[in-house]
C-alpha cells in the first residue's frame, strides 16, 4: 500500500474553483490492527453545477465514497485518511455543529431504496415540515405551503393530498420524488445520489433522471450520481469516475470514456453493458473473468491486474497512480493503467514507484485472439485447481458441498 495520493491531473484545472474535492480518501472496517480496507485511495472533484458519475461494481467502494462526503459512515466503518474539501472547508474536520449546518444547507442526499429512506411511521408532510422548520426556520404554515410547493416542483400530482400520505401509500417513483424534494428543500449546492434509480423500473428510471437534470438546471446545483449502470451515467453526467477495488481507475468526460476507454477495467465494464444496437438481438455479453478483490486482499500493484486481460508481470508491483490520458489535453481525464494505450499493447509507463520487472517491458502488441486465449488459459487453470469460474458469489465455499446438508445452515 505505497500508493501516493496525488492531485488528479486532467481534472486539476477544475480543482481551482472546485465545489468539492476529495483526496486520498481511505475507509476501513474491522479491527485497527487488521483492517478491511473498503476505500483505498480515492480522489475526485466536482465543479459547481457539474454532474459527475461514480461508477463501479458493488463492493468497489463507490457508495462508501459518496457517504464519506457527508460523513455518514457508521461504526464500525471509519475514514482513516484523506480530505473532503467543500468550498475550502474540510468536512472530515468539522465539529458536529458545523457538520449539521453543512448537511442542512450545502448538500443533500438521495438513496437507492426509496422504500426504506422514508420513515414508515411519518407522513410525507411530517418529513418536509420537519426539515423546512429545522433548516430554513419556517413557521408551521410557511413550511406547509413550501412543502406542498416542493412536492409540486418534483412532479407529484395532487401534492396537497400526498402531503398527508404515509410513505407506504406511494409508489417507488413517487417516493424517490419525495426524497428529491426533501434533499433539495434547502437548495443545496451539491446533491449526492446513491444509486437513485436502481430500485425503480425502467420508465420510472428515465423520469427520475430527467427530474434530476431539471432540478440541477433550476437550482444550479452539482450532482454526484453513484451507479453501477453506465447507461444511467451516460444519460445525465458530464464527467465520470470509474471505481474498482477501492480505487478510482479512470476519470474523464463521459463521451471520451465511452468512445475510448483508457483503462482495461473501464473497457470491460462497457463491454458488459448491452447497447441499443444489440437490444433487439440479444448477444450474450462477456462478463469479466474472475472476482473483484476481497477486502482482505492486499495487492501491492494494480487492483485489477489479477483479472486483466492485458496485464504485464510488472502490473502487480507498480502502485496505482492516475496519470493524464493525454498530456496535451488535460480535460480528457486520466487513467491508472500504466500500459498505454493498453488496447494496442502500448509501452508500460509507470510514473511512480519501483521500475517495472525487466521481463515485463514492452511486448509486442497483443491481438484480440491472444487476449481470448489468455482468458481461456486462465479459465483452464482455474478448472484445474477446482475453482469454478462461474460461481456467483466470491464468498461461497469452494469445496464441494457436503451431502448431509442439514449441517450447512
Amino acid at each position, binding site marked *: 500500500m505505497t500508493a501516493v495520493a496525488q492531485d488528479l491531473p486532467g481534472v486539476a484545472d477544475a480543482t481551482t474553483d472546485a465545489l468539492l474535492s476529495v483526496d486520498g480518501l481511505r475507509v476501513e472496517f474491522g479491527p485497527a490492527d487488521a483492517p478491511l480496507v473498503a476505500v483505498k485511495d480515492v480522489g475526485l472533484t466536482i465543479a459547481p453545477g457539474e454532474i459527475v458519475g461514480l461508477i463501479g461494481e458493488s463492493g468497489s467502494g463507490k457508495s462508501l465514497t459518496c457517504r464519506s462526503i457527508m460523513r455518514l459512515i457508521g461504526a464500525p466503518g471509519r475514514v482513516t485518511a484523506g480530505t473532503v474539501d467543500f468550498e475550502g472547508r474540510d468536512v472530515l474536520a468539522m465539529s458536529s455543529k458545523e457538520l449539521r449546518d453543512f448537511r442542512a444547507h450545502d448538500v443533500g442526499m438521495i438513496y437507492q431504496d426509496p422504500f426504506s429512506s422514508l420513515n414508515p411511521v411519518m407522513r410525507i408532510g411530517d418529513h418536509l415540515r420537519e426539515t423546512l422548520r429545522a433548516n430554513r426556520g419556517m413557521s408551521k404554515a410557511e413550511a406547509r405551503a413550501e412543502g406542498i410547493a416542493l412536492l409540486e416542483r418534483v412532479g407529484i400530482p395532487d401534492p396537497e393530498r400526498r402531503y398527508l400520505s404515509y410513505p407506504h401509500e406511494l409508489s417507488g417513483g413517487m417516493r424517490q420524488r419525495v426524497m428529491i424534494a426533501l434533499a433539495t428543500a434547502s437548495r443545496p449546492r451539491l446533491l449526492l445520489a446513491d444509486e437513485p434509480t436502481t430500485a425503480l423500473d425502467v420508465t420510472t428510471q428515465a423520469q427520475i433522471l430527467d427530474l434530476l437534470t431539471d432540478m440541477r438546471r433550476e437550482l444550479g446545483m452539482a450532482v454526484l450520481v453513484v451507479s453501477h449502470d453506465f447507461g444511467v451515467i451516460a444519460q445525465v453526467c458530464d464527467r465520470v469516475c470509474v471505481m474498482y477495488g477501492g480505487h478510482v481507475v479512470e476519470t474523464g468526460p463521459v463521451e471520451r470514456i465511452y468512445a475510448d476507454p483508457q483503462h482495461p477495467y473501464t473497457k470491460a465494464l462497457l463491454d458488459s453493458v448491452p447497447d441499443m444496437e444489440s437490444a433487439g438481438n440479444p448477444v450474450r455479453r462477456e462478463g469479466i473473468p474472475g472476482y473483484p478483490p476481497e477486502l482482505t486482499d492486499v495487492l501491492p500493484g494494480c487492483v485489477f491486474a489479477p483479472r486483466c486481460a492485458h496485464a504485464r508481470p510488472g502490473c502487480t508491483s507498480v502502485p496505482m497512480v492516475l496519470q493524464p490520458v493525454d498530456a496535451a489535453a488535460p480535460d480528457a481525464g486520466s487513467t491508472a493503467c500504466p500500459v498505454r494505450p493498453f488496447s494496442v499493447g502500448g509501452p508500460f509507463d509507470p510514473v511512480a514507484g519501483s521500475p517495472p520487472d525487466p521481463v515485463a517491458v514492452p511486448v509486442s502488441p497483443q491481438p484480440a485472439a491472444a487476449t481470448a486465449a489468455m482468458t481461456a488459459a486462465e479459465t483452464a487453470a482455474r478448472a484445474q485447481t477446482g475453482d469454478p469460474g462461474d460461481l456467483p458469489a466470491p464468498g461461497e465455499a469452494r469445496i464441494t458441498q457436503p451431502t448431509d*446438508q*442439514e449441517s*450447512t*445452515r
Partner: protein
Amino acid sequence: MSTATLTPPARPSAAGRLLRRVWRQPLPVRIGGVLVGILVFAAVFAPLLAPYGQNDLDFNAQLQGPSLAHPMGTDDTGRDVFSRTLYGLRIDLAVVLFITYVPLPIGVLMGAIAGYFGGKVDLVISRIIDITIAFPFIVLVIAIVAIVGPGLTGIMIGVPIVAWALYARLARSEMLVLREQPFMLATTALGYTRRRAILRHAVPNLMRSSLIYSTVDLVVNLLLLAGLSYLGLGMQPPNAELGTIIAEGQANLLNAWWITTLPGLVLVVFGVGVGLIGDGLSDGELRGGGA
C-alpha cells in the same frame, strides 16, 4: 456444561476438551461458566460439603449471624442456613433441569409439525399455543398445582404443561422459514418420509435456538420454582428449598437478615452466571450469522 458436570464424562479427554472449549469463549461467558460451575458442583456434592444436616436443630444456636461455624448463620430453630442452602440448591437445580428440558423437545416437535404441515394442523396447534400463552404463566401453573396438590410433583407436572408452548411458538416460526430451504425441499424431492424429514432434518436445526433460549428459561424457571415454594405451593417443609428458606426467614427479616438475604444471593449468582453464558452464546450466534 451443567449436564457434563452432573454426569461425569466417560473419558477424561472429553472433559479436557470441554474445558478447553469453554476457555476459548469470551470473558463474560467464562465468568458465567465459573459461577455456574461452582454452584452446580456445590449442589451435586451438597451431602459431602454441608457441615450439618439440613434439618439438624440446635436450640443453643438460634438466629446466629454468619460465623466460621455457620457461614450463613442459623435460623430460629438453630438450623445451619449454609447447609440448608446447599441442599435447597441441589433440589432446585434438579427440578429446574427437569421442568426446562422436558418441555423443550416436546415444544420443538409440536412447532416443527405445525410449521411443516401448515394448514389445519398448524391452525389447531397454533390456537392451542395461543390459549396456553394467553394465561399468565404463573397463574396457570398455580391452577394446575391447585389440582395436583401443592408440592414439587405439582410443579413438575404444571410447568411442562405450560412451558412447551413457548418453544413450540419459537420452533414453528423458524420452521416456516426452514421449510423453504433447499435442503428441506430436497427431502421431499428425495422421497424421504415426512417423519424422517421432520425428525432427522428439521428438528436438529430448530433445537439450536431453543437451546439458546432455554438458558433464559433456566433462570426464569428457577425463580418460578423458588417463588412457588415461597408461596407455600412448592417444596413442603421441613426439607430445604431456597424459596422456603427465604419464606421462613421473613418473620425475622430485621433481626436475622442473613436467613433471607444470603440464600437469595445464591439464586442471584446462579441467574447472573447463566445470564452471562446466554448473552455470550446469543452474541456469538449474531456474530457468526453476520460474518
